[in-house]
């Protein structure tokens, strides 16, 4: 659920290429919301994507108990289809749901169009609720003009997963991995020499984190608030250099995240660490490499780096009719402010709560069997509070691709880093103000 980000984009592309497409673009597949019988029975339409849809459905009996006259219809589509359908619904104002689930990068994208209600207004008054959420999650939904367009429900604090057995075999400690990025790479050299395992699946993952960390206040990843292009800054140079060092020393398996080879590397224990969201532990245990149960541990990202890997939000579109808004808001509140419900989502779908009350529950102290009994949620809870929100620029998607292409040029064709970043800068500057 809490995914996306560049390491997941490939998967999103795949899903989109095979499933989404012109039909969704025409809006034929968009969320249904006709037939609002104003008199007696009312229908609340919710659009969501897999796993979030389950969480919403789980809340329906309680909601129905309070509103027996309201039917709630949950329309669920695959991740990429869902966001394409929501874009289409907002752009044409047809089949707009009353509540939509959005992945964090799309919150940033959608907030630029004014198609989502500003929840600072009554009856929502979300500003009063601010202290109840993980700060970065709330801030992610704040637009440049100060409007708050969505409510966070789950988050994906970044974490470092490592194979404790391989680490021991190589004679390394956790500190060796986390002290600094340099020590992380040096540990990779020792790991490779003593165990034969790669440090990580792809050097790109390291670049992805480094370009997102150490941002100045107000800076996005690629652009600042005045749309100035930042890709030639030291942050990018360092990210590229470190990725190149990892590649040159043969420390990455050169596989794309979410590919079969990538999953195979975890199954066979040839990739000793992974940098990802906390939810990766669930993915790993459920399908990527269930047999490695007990061999993994998690720790903070190297060099006190704090980044988010996705997160889920609920938004209410401007097209939601005024008489439905209170109902829609009530459902959203139920999903985001009810401690028990947030914990249930954590237990059933691995959705890490954005609600602070839920994070203080004793459940967080329970050991995770897949991590050999580590109380990892406490670690993630602490990390999450250090994360800062990342402003999303209109051209972020394009910038992602330009930077990834230039990184490929550097890694595969030995293009000098300054030239690669300069080429990227030129492309981005042309679009910065479109």
């Amino acid at each position: 659920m809490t995914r996306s980000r560049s390491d997941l984009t490939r998967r999103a592309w795949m899903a989109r290429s095979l499933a989404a497409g012109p039909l969704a673009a025409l809006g034929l597949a968009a969320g249904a919301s006709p037939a609002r019988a104003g008199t007696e029975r009312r229908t609340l339409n919710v659009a969501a994507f897999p796993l979030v849809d389950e969480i919403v459905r789980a809340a329906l009996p309680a909601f129905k108990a309070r509103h027996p006259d309201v039917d709630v219809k949950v329309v669920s589509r695959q991740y990429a289809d869902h966001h394409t359908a929501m874009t289409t619904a907002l752009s044409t104002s047809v089949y707009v749901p009353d509540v939509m689930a959005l992945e964090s990068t799309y919150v940033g994208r959608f907030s630029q169009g004014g198609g989502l209600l500003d929840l600072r207004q009554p009856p929502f008054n979300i500003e009063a609720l601010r202290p109840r959420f993980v700060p970065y999650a709330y801030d992610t939904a704040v637009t440049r003009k100060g409007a708050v367009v969505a409510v966070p429900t789950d988050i994906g604090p970044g974490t470092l997963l490592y194979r404790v057995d391989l680490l021991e075999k190589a004679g390394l400690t956790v500190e060796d991995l986390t002290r600094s990025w340099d020590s992380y790479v040096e540990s990779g050299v020792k790991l490779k020499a003593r165990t034969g395992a790669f440090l990580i699946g792809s050097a790109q993952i390291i670049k992805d984190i480094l370009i997102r960390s150490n941002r100045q206040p107000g800076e996005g990843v690629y652009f600042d608030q005045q749309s100035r292009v930042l890709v030639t800054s030291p942050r990018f140079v360092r990210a590229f250099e470190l990725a190149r060092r990892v590649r040159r020393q043969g420390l990455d398996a050169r596989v794309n995240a979410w590919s079969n080879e990538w999953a195979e590397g975890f199954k066979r224990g040839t990739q000793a660490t992974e940098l990802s969201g906390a939810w990766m532990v669930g993915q790993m245990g459920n399908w990527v490499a269930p047999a490695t149960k007990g061999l993994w541990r998690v720790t903070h990202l190297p060099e006190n780096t704090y980044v988010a890997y996705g997160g889920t939000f609920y938004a209410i579109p401007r097209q939601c009719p005024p008489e439905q808004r209170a109902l829609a808001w009530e459902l959203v509140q139920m999903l985001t402010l009810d401690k028990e419900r947030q914990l249930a989502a954590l237990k059933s779908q691995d959705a890490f709560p954005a609600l602070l009350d839920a994070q203080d529950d004793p459940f967080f102290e329970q050991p995770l069997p897949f991590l050999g009994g580590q109380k990892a949620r406490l670690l993630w809870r602490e990390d999450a509070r250090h994360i800062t929100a990342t402003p999303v620029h209109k051209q972020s998607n394009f910038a992602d691709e330009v930077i990834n292409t230039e990184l490929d040029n550097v890694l595969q064709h030995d293009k000098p880093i300054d030239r690669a970043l300069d080429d990227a800068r030129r492309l981005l500057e042309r679009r910065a103000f479109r």
Partner: protein
Amino acid sequence: MRLPNAFRLSPRWAPYVFISPFLILFAIFGIYPLGFSMYLAFQSWEPTGGLQAMEFVGLANFAFALQDEWFWKALRNTLWLAVAAGAPQHLVAIPLAVFIHNRFKRLRDAAIGAYFLPYITSTVAIAIMFSSLFSKDYGLVNAALQSVFGLAHIDWLGQGENIKPAIAIIVFWRYLGFNLVLYLAALQTIPQDLYEAATMDGAGRWQQFRWITLPSLRPMMFFGVTLSVVGGLQLFEEPFILTGGNGGMDQAGMTSAVYLYRMAFDFNDFGGASAMSWILFAVVAVLTWLTNRAFRPEAGRRAA
């Protein structure tokens, strides 16, 4: 029972009524999108803001498109693929058609059917099949190249420089049969007398091919090449599916049509995408006109 006069269709209106289903559908799915994209080409639009979020920007989208490096990159990719996949289709289809026409008797239809089959197969199925054929470690293509030529495994779909040839091979394979059918149809219209007369005059097989068959095929070449030019410049499905929808490493497989799609749906720039689509239309029109110039039957030398 006679219908009351009010319900009778007067002969004057009947033709329009009968043709109206087509016209209505064409207006909705043909004219309207065309007009809308023309309108969009002059607007700046943040789609999630709704239709009212459009803002007139004059020719800015066209200016942007013409100065956009990726637009030219995509156009170069497209032209490369159009030539590399299009030219061999005809260079192979013509001799192949002649061969089948002359040599095959009972198995003729089966042979044509075999060649035509890829054309009517679903693109998605084809792309999935070729993805596994072109797989780096387990693909048949690499296995064959290794056993016959001893070549090292080629990363067909993961390396920028290999993606275009891979796509070109698929497009060639797919449309060869279509062109073959075109040329076979044309071959059947060439009068047998011409060949008999030529044989009497002592013309060899090559001379007959060069001076009778080829000139007679010229009108069909014009038709086939025009379709290849238009189809090649609009190439979308094969590269889109084969590269996972993003054009692949270094955008090497990103054709203009794929780029247009991505501009709109990945990069949220509908105005820019519309402007590019009209520029692409102009390119298609010019190249079609050039094809027409090259293959147009010349006065006084009309083919039989």
